[in-house]
C-alpha cells in the first residue's frame, strides 16, 4: 500500500459526506422556487410577528431588483427555481438530546456534536436543514444570564424588542442580492446574548447540517456581547454531496459592546455542490475586540468576506483565515474592515492554498474613514500554488481618507520550495507526506488560533485535500 493510500485511510471523508436516508413522511419540504407565495408560506411556518412578515416581503422585492454581483465567481449553476427554501423535520426543537428524532440524532452523533458538547462546550445548537433541532446551554452558563436559544422563540419572548432592534440592521437587505434573499426566507439560527461583564469561559457552538438535496439553508445568527463581556462562539457546517446545487445564504450579525470581546471561529466544510453565499458582519464599540478565525474547505463556490466595523475608539479587529481550494472549487474569500473610531486597529492575516484546478481568490477591503485618526491597519496574504492547473489570485483594496493613519500591506504568491521537500525526503519522509507537512506548517498560524479539537479537524481536512480525496 502506498503512503498516499495510508494518508487517505487515516481520514474518513464519510464523516461529512454520508447521506442519511430520510423518510419523506417525516419531513416537510416546501415547493422549489422563490415567489411571494413561498415567502408567505415560510412566514406562516415560522409563525412570524407581523413586522417580520412585512420585512420578508420587502426583502423579496429587493431580491428581484438587485443584480447578481459582476465581480465574483460564476453562480450560473444556481437556479433558484430548483431550490427549496424550507425543509424541516416534522418534530419540534428539543432541549434534551435523547428527545431528538433518531435519524437526525444519528447524523449529529456521527459528526461528534454531542460528544463535543459533553467535553468542551458551554452550549450547543444543532440545525438540520431549515430548523434547529436541538438547543442546550449548560446550567452554570445560563445561571450567569447568558441567553443561547433559537431566534424564532426569542422573538416572542422578553428579548423580542432587542431582536427587532438588531435584526438585519448591520446587514441590511439592500446590501446585496443574497442578503435580500436571506431576509425573505431566513429560518433557524441562534440568538446569543451575553450580559454586561459576563465572561463565558468555554465556547458555545452552533452546527449547521444541510442534509436535503436541492435545498437552501438560510439560518440567521445574532450575537450581542454586552459591555465588558467575553464570548467564544464556534460555527461548524457540513453537508452530504449531491449532484444538484445546494445553497447556503446565512447571515451572521455580531454586536460587540464597549470593552467586550468576541471570538467567532468557523470551520466550513460544506459539500462540493454547495453555493456558499454567506454574509457575516460585526460592529465593535469603544475598546471592544473582534476576532475572526475562519477555515474554508468545502463548497463548490464561495463568496465569504466577514466584515468588521470598528465604530468605537480604540476598538480592534483581528482576522485569521485559511482557504483551501481543490478540484472543482471556486472559493472567493477574504475580509473587510471599516475604521470609524479613533486609534482603531485591524490585522488581517490570510493563507490560501490552490490545488487540482481549484480557484482560490483572496479579496478584501480596508477602509479608513476621515474620523479614524491614528488608525492602524495591517494586511498580510500568502498564497500557495500546488500545481499549474490551479489559480491563486489576491485582490485587496484599500481606501484611506486621512493622513493620520498607518497602513501596511503585503502579499506573496509562491510554491513549495524544492529544497524544503528535498530536505524532508532526505530524512525518510515520502514526497506526499513532505508536501502535506509543509502545507500544514503554512496553515499553522490559523490552526493555532483554534481550540485543539478543531485544529486537529482542520489539519485532517488539509491532509484529506492534499491526498486528492477532499
Amino acid at each position, binding site marked *: 500500500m502506498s503512503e498516499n493510500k495510508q494518508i487517505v485511510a487515516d481520514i474518513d471523508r464519510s464523516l461529512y459526506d454520508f447521506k442519511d436516508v430520510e423518510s419523506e413522511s417525516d419531513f416537510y419540504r416546501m415547493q422549489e422556487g422563490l415567489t411571494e407565495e413561498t415567502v408567505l408560506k415560510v412566514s406562516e411556518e415560522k409563525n412570524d410577528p407581523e413586522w417580520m412578515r412585512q420585512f420578508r416581503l420587502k426583502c423579496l422585492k429587493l431580491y428581484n431588483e438587485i443584480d447578481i454581483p459582476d465581480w465574483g465567481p460564476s453562480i450560473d449553476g444556481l437556479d433558484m427555481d430548483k431550490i427549496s427554501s424550507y425543509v424541516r423535520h416534522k418534530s419540534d426543537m428539543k432541549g434534551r438530546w435523547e428527545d431528538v428524532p433518531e435519524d437526525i440524532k444519528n447524523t449529529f452523533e456521527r459528526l461528534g456534536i454531542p460528544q463535543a458538547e459533553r467535553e468542551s462546550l458551554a452550549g450547543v445548537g444543532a440545525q438540520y436543514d431549515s430548523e434547529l433541532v436541538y438547543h442546550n446551554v449548560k446550567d452554570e452558563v445560563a445561571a450567569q444570564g447568558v441567553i443561547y436559544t433559537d431566534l424564532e422563540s426569542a422573538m416572542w419572548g422578553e428579548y423580542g424588542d432587542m431582536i427587532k432592534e438588531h435584526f438585519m440592521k448591520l446587514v441590511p437587505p439592500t446590501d446585496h442580492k443574497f442578503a435580500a434573499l436571506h431576509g425573505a426566507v431566513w429560518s433557524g439560527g441562534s440568538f446569543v446574548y451575553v450580559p454586561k461583564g459576563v465572561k463565558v469561559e468555554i465556547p458555545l457552538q452552533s452546527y449547521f447540517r444541510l442534509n436535503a438535496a436541492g435545498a437552501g439553508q438560510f439560518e440567521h445568527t445574532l450575537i450581542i456581547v454586552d459591555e465588558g463581556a467575553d464570548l467564544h462562539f464556534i460555527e461548524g457546517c457540513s453537508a452530504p454531496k449531491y449532484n444538484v446545487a445546494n445553497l447556503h445564504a446565512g447571515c451572521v450579525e455580531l454586536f460587540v459592546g464597549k470593552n467586550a470581546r468576541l471570538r467567532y471561529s468557523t470551520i466550513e466544510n460544506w459539500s462540493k455542490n454547495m453555493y456558499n453565499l454567506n454574509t457575516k458582519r460585526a460592529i465593535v464599540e469603544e475598546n471592544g475586540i473582534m476576532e475572526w478565525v475562519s477555515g474554508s474547505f468545502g463548497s463548490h463556490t464561495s463568496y465569504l468576506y466577514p466584515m468588521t466595523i470598528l465604530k468605537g475608539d480604540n476598538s480592534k479587529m483581528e482576522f485569521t483565515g485559511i482557504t483551501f481550494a481543490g478540484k472543482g472549487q471556486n472559493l472567493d474569500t477574504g475580509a473587510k474592515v471599516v475604521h470609524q473610531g479613533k486609534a482603531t486597529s485591524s490585522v488581517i492575516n490570510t493563507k490560501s492554498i490552490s490545488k487540482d484546478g481549484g480557484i482560490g481568490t483572496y479579496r478584501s477591503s480596508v477602509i479608513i474613514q476621515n474620523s479614524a485618526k491614528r488608525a492602524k491597519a495591517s494586511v498580510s496574504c500568502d498564497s500557495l*500554488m500546488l500545481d499549474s492547473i490551479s489559480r491563486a489570485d*489576491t485582490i485587496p483594496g484599500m481606501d484611506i*481618507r486621512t493622513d493620520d493613519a498607518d497602513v501596511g500591506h503585503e502579499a506573496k504568491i509562491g510554491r513549495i520550495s524544492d529544497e524544503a521537500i528535498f530536505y524532508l525526503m532526505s530524512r525518510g519522509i515520502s514526497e506526499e507526506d513532505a508536501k502535506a507537512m509543509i502545507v500544514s506548517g503554512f496553515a499553522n498560524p490559523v490552526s493555532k488560533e483554534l481550540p485543539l479539537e478543531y485544529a486537529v479537524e482542520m489539519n485532517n481536512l488539509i491532509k484529506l485535500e492534499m491526498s486528492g480525496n477532499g
Partner: protein
Amino acid sequence: MNRDINMKVNVLPVLTYNFLHVNDSTLQIKDMEIQTDGAPKPSDIPAGVTLTGEVPFSEAGQVFRANKERILVAKENFAGPNGDTSERDKDQAIRTGMGADVDNLMTNMGVKSDVYTIDEGVRLTSPIILRYDMQNGQGSLSSQVIHAGKNSEATFIMVYDSDKDAAGFHGVSTRILAEDGAKIKLVKAQTLGKEFIHFDDIGGALMKGAEISLVTLELGGSRVYSSSYMYLSDKEASYNSNMGYLCRDDHSLDINYVADQRGKKTNAAMQFKGVLMGTANKTFRGTLDFKTGSSGSVGDEQEDALLLSPDVINRTMPVILCQEEDVEGRHGATIGQLSDDLLFYMQCRGIDEVEAKRIMIRARLESVSRLIPDPEIMQKVQYYIESIV
C-alpha cells in the same frame, strides 16, 4: 470643431467590490477644441532610426496585430480569474493601461501616429527627446509607436510642460514592441499647468531577453490618468517601472499599471512613490499577472504613499493574479504620514516639521527624477519640484 469626450478608462483587470469605486474611471471633457497634429518631432533622427510620420492610429498598430501570436503566446488557459475584464480590450492592437476607449478616441479623432523603427543591433548613445510645450487653452492628442529591433538600445524622453497656471487637455498614446534583446528606456516627465487634464496611455510587449525601463513623473495637471500594460511575452523579458507623483489641491490622479507575465523567467518590478496634499484624490491599481507558462518568473510591486493632509483620499488596489505554480509574486504598500520617530529625529537636528515634510517630499520625488538620463531635463524637473514644494 469643439468636442465632448466621455470614456471609461483604467478598467481593473479583475473587478472587485463596486463600493470601492476602483473598477474603472471616467474621463470626461466638455466642449474642447482638440488638435491631432501636435506631436513634437526630435531635433534630429539618429542613424539607424526611421521616423515614419502621419500614420493613421489604427494602421500604426499593425505591427502588434502582425505579431499577436508571439505577444499573447497562445496557450491553453485553464480558468480565468473571477471578475475578468480582458474581453473588454480584446480588439486593441495591443492592450494598454487605459484600454480600448483611448484607441477608439484616437481612431475617431483621426490621430496620426509617429512610428519610430530602430534597426536591429543599433545602440543609441543619446536619448530621443520629444518636448510638448502646451499652451493655455490648448487641446491635443498624439501617438507614438516604438518598434525596437533585435538587440537595439534606445532612450526616449517625453516632456509635457506648460505654464504652471495653464488649463487645457493633453492625451498621449505610446505603444512599444521590443524585439529579442532590445533595451528601451522610456521617460515621461509631466509638469503641466494646474488646470490641465492629461492622460498618458502606454502599451508594450517584450520579446526574448528584452528590457523596458519606464520612468514616469506625474507632477502637474488637475486630472491625470497614467497607465501602462506590458506583456512580458518571452523568456527572460524584464520590465522595470518607477513612478513618482505629486497630487495636490483638489487634483486627481488615476493609475492603472499591469505586468502580464507570459514567458519563462520573466522579471517585473514596479515601484510607485508619491505624495498627496490638500484634498487630492488618488487611485492606484497595480497588477502582476502570472499566466500559465511563466514558470520561474518573479514579480514585485511596491507602493509608498505619503499623505500630508487630513482630507486626502488614497485608494490602492494591488492585485496579483497567478495561474502558474513556479513563480514568486510580491506586493507591499506603505501608506501614511511621516512617522513620529522620523519627525523627532529631524527636530532634534533643528529641522522643524514643515521643513522635514519638504525634505521628505523632495526625497521621494527626486529618487525618481534622478533616473532621467538627460541632465538638463532632470534639473528642470527638480527645479519644478522645488518650486512646488
